[in-house]
Structures are given as C-alpha cells and as structure tokens.
C-alpha cells in the first residue's frame, strides 16, 4: 500500500467513508437488482407499446374511462379506510398506555387479525355479512331491517376487510409512538392545572402528529394495494375495480405488458403523491425526540 492511497483513505475516513461501508453492499445489490432495476425496466416497457408512440400506453390508460376511473375507485377505498384506522387507533391507544391488568392479552388479541390474511378475512366476511350470515340474522331478528342488508360484493365488503386487517396494524404503530412520549411532560402540564383535553390537544397530539403521519402512510400503502379482497369480497368488475386489478388484467389476461407496466407506474405515482403530501405536512411539524431527557 503506497503512501498516496493511505492518504486518500484517511481523507475518506474523515468524511465517514471506510471499509465498514462494504457491509451495505449486499443489501444495496439486492434492492437495486430486485427493486430499482425492475422498476426502471417497467418504465421502459411502459414506454414501448405495441402500437402508437412512446406515451400511447399512458394515453390509453387516461382516455379509457374504464381504466382511468380505477384511480378514483382505489383512492375512494384506501383514503377513508386508512384515515378511519388511524383515527380509531388514537383514542384506543391513548387509553391503553401505561400498565393495567390484561394489557398484554388485549394487545395480543388486537394483533391476531394481522395474521388472518386477506383471503381468510374475505371468506369470513362473506360468511358473516352475507345475506344469511349472522350479522343479517341479528338485524332481522332485532327487527331493524326488513330484508338482508347487502354488505358483500360491493364497496363495504372491501372496506370492512381493510379495517379488519389495517386497524390492528395502525393501532400497534400508534401505541408504540404514544408510549415513546415521555409521560412526565403530561404530568408537568397536569401540575400546572391542565385538564385532560388540554393535555391531549396541546401536548400529546402535537408530539404524536409525526408518528400519526407515518402510521397513516403505512396503513395507506396497505389499503392502496388492496387486490385479493377487492376480487373476493368486492365487485371486481364495477364498484371495486381498483387500479391493481386493472394492472393485473392487462398483464395476465390481455398479456399487454406495456399497458400493465403503465398501470403499475401510474399506481406507484398516485401512491407516492399521497405519501409525499402527508410526509410533507409532517415535516412542518415537530420532529425531534419525544422521549424527553437525553433524546
């Protein structure tokens, strides 16, 4: 090793670059080879349709109402589902901070739905909410309705399946962000005479807001990629024809890879726009440590 390479190495090490960074190489290779490259490949494919110019696949997607409307359909399912999951998680998690008897059991019970998977949830919803299911029997028995309510094979079936799989996830995240907030901050406010509403809205909520933004994004990703449940409990040809169904059909039913890639890229773009907006709003908020003391 010559003196000059040593000097270069030294200079790099001062900026934080040395051989230890080689540990990053395998993971980077994986992500580049299996995520970045296919993505770029997909963009390239989407720009080479069988006929028409480079943007023909996109033009077709946006001019064909049957395809274009899938964007709105997906957002109409994913945004409310993600919002409700996060909003419902906040008060429940707020009640579940600290310790009480049965907390671990309750947390475990809330985690269980994560394991159900979309297929079992779909099957269960079809049985439970279907025209002869327990739910409709209950409503009929109580005299609340005259005939069974239709809750499956339409928007609501998909929506419920997203709540069942998404809520526990949102809850766990919110709970862990909440327990990361130093309780002494609230106690300090309490000694100054703040009621629970003041403590919650002036202290806890602002500290929690960045975590809520992250939770919303992750729940939204889950809800946005709704595919099996949109087919199984939804109405895949109509009211729940989400964009992933459009992409899937283009690829595996029509074998039109340009159109499929275009739909996938549009889907990714729409999703990234929503996430960027949410995270952009988040960066306006306090982003420091919430743990108090030496953070």
């Amino acid at each position, binding site marked *: 090793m010559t003196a000059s390479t040593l000097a270069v190495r030294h200079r790099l090490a001062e900026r*934080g670059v040395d051989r230890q960074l080689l540990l990053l190489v*395998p*993971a980077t290779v994986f992500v580049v080879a299996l995520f970045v490259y296919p993505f770029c490949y997909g963009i390239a494919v989407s720009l080479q349709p069988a006929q028409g110019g480079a943007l023909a696949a996109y033009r077709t997607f946006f001019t064909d109402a049957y395809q274009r409307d899938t964007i709105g359909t997906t957002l109409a399912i994913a945004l409310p589902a993600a919002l409700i999951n996060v909003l419902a998680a906040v008060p429940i998690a707020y009640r579940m901070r600290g310790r009480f008897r049965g907390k671990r059991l309750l947390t475990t019970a809330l985690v269980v739905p994560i394991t159900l998977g979309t297929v079992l949830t779909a099957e269960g919803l079809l049985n439970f909410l279907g025209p002869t299911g327990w739910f409709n029997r209950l409503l009929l028995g109580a005299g609340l309705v005259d005939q069974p309510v239709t809750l499956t094979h339409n928007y609501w079936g998909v929506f419920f399946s997203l709540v069942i799989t998404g809520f526990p996830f949102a809850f766990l995240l919110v709970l862990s962000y909440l*327990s990361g907030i130093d309780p002494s901050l609230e106690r300090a406010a309490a000694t100054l005479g703040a009621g629970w509403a003041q403590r919650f809205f002036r202290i806890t909520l602002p500290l929690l807001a960045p*975590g809520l933004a992250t939770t919303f994004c992750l729940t939204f990703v889950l809800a946005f990629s709704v595919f099996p449940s949109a087919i199984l409990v939804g109405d895949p040809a109509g009211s729940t024809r989400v964009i*992933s169904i459009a992409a899937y059909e283009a690829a595996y039913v029509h074998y039109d890879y340009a159109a499929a890639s275009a739909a*996938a890229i549009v889907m990714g773009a729409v999703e990234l726009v929503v996430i960027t907006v949410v995270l952009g709003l988040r960066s306006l908020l306090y982003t420091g440590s919430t743990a108090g003391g030496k953070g």
Partner: protein
Amino acid sequence: MRRRIVASPGAWVVWGLVAIFFAALAGVIGSVVVNSFGVRWFDTWLPPDYTTRWYGQAWTDFTLLPVLTVTLVVCLLVAGISVLVGVPAAYVLARRRFPGSRLMYLLFLLPILMPPITYGIPLATVLYKYGLAGHLSGVVLANLVPSVPFVILTMTPFIEQIDPAVERAARMCGARTRHVFASILAPLLVPGILAASILVVVRTVGMFELTFLTAGPDSQTLVVALFYSMSAAGIRAQQSVDAMAVIYCVMMLVLLVVALRFVNPTQLVARVKEDPE
C-alpha cells in the same frame, strides 16, 4: 402506578368501539370455523350437523402437504437470506453517518412504501425474462424485495440501543469488525434477529401479491393456493375452502405467538422502557 379501567364516558365509547371490533372479528373468524366443521349450513343460526371430513378433503384435494412444504421452504429461505443481508446493512445505517446515508435509507424505505403490485408486475416480467419466475427461486427472490428492507428497518433501532462503547472497547483490544460481529454484536442481537426473522416469516406466509405474480403450479404458497381455491368457487365445497383457511389461520397464529414471546409488538417502532417510573 396502575390505571383504573373505570367510568368516564369517553372510556365507555372507546371500550365500546373495541368491543364492537372484537365482536365483528369473532363473527368473521367464528363463521369460517363453524362452516369448516358444518356438514351443510344454509339458512339457520348454526349448522345442523358437524363433521371433520372437510379437513381431510382439503388436505387431499388441495394437495396441502406439498403446498405447506413450499410455504415452509420459501419462508425459511426468505428469512435466512434477508437476515444475512439485512443485519450488516442495518448495522452500518444505525452506527454511521456518511455522505449519502440518508439516500441509502430512502432507498431501503421505498420498497416498503410501495404497494407490492406496483413493483410486483415489473419484477415478475423481469424474473420471467431470466427464467426465474414460475419456480421456487422466483418466489423467494420476489419475497426478498420487501423483506430485506423490513429487516433493516426493524434491526436499526435494536442496534442503536447497544452501547457503542462496548464495541469501541473491543476494538481497543484489537478485535476486527468480523470479531466484533461474531463475539459481541451477534449475542446481543439474537433476540432482535429472532424477532425480525419471525416477523419476516409471518409477512412471507401472508404475502399474497408477490407470490401470486411469480409462482408456478409447483411453487404456490398456502395463501396463493387458498386464493385460487376460493376464486374457483363452485368447483370445491365451500366448507373445504374454509377448512383450508382455518389451517392457514392456525399456522399463522402459532407463528405469531412464538414471535410475541421474543418481541413486544408495541416497541417495534420506538424502543422505550415498558414502565418509565
């Protein structure tokens, strides 16, 4: 300090919501379980007769043994590879600041922030191009895309809480990175690695889209086989599909209970002490 679970109206609303959620959940799971044991079940509260034959039928009709073997092999491979690849990367990201470290972090965050279908379709196209899709290798590769970043993101806080002074002391005594990893970090990280790999297994068992897009007839995991049997409704008895769903659910539940022994689910994001008093 124990909190009291009594009284205020707000509390009643909150616990009411939780109760409704659990009731719906019990209804959803219960109706699948009941149906899987019912001989037939039409317009009544409960099926008139019970049987276990749907399970036997599901086992043979859906060739569950090979499907379960594939699921197991895929999960173990995915978990193993993503830990081997992810943990060193998590170590660097947790400990070091270097030019582009934020960019690297973003690169690893992106696959998690993207719906699987979005990158799954181009990925499947690429894998088919190289003749990897339709086999086990394609399924494993596709499932690694979200798993490697997932391991990195869950392991980073685990590593951050290990005192760097321990490592510095070892280095002072002449240990090289390899030794630091083998004799100091690895033992301290075992709980974290176990937690991360079990969570990867849970995610992989449940990962529908990527497996669906890349699997061939011999490389379906349980969840994909379940989807096919369900969307081909009418060919098979509904009850045996339900029996298969129950088998799937029990399997996931066992995995989850094992996972919860190693990791407190609420501390995945922000690692804090359980009781800061």
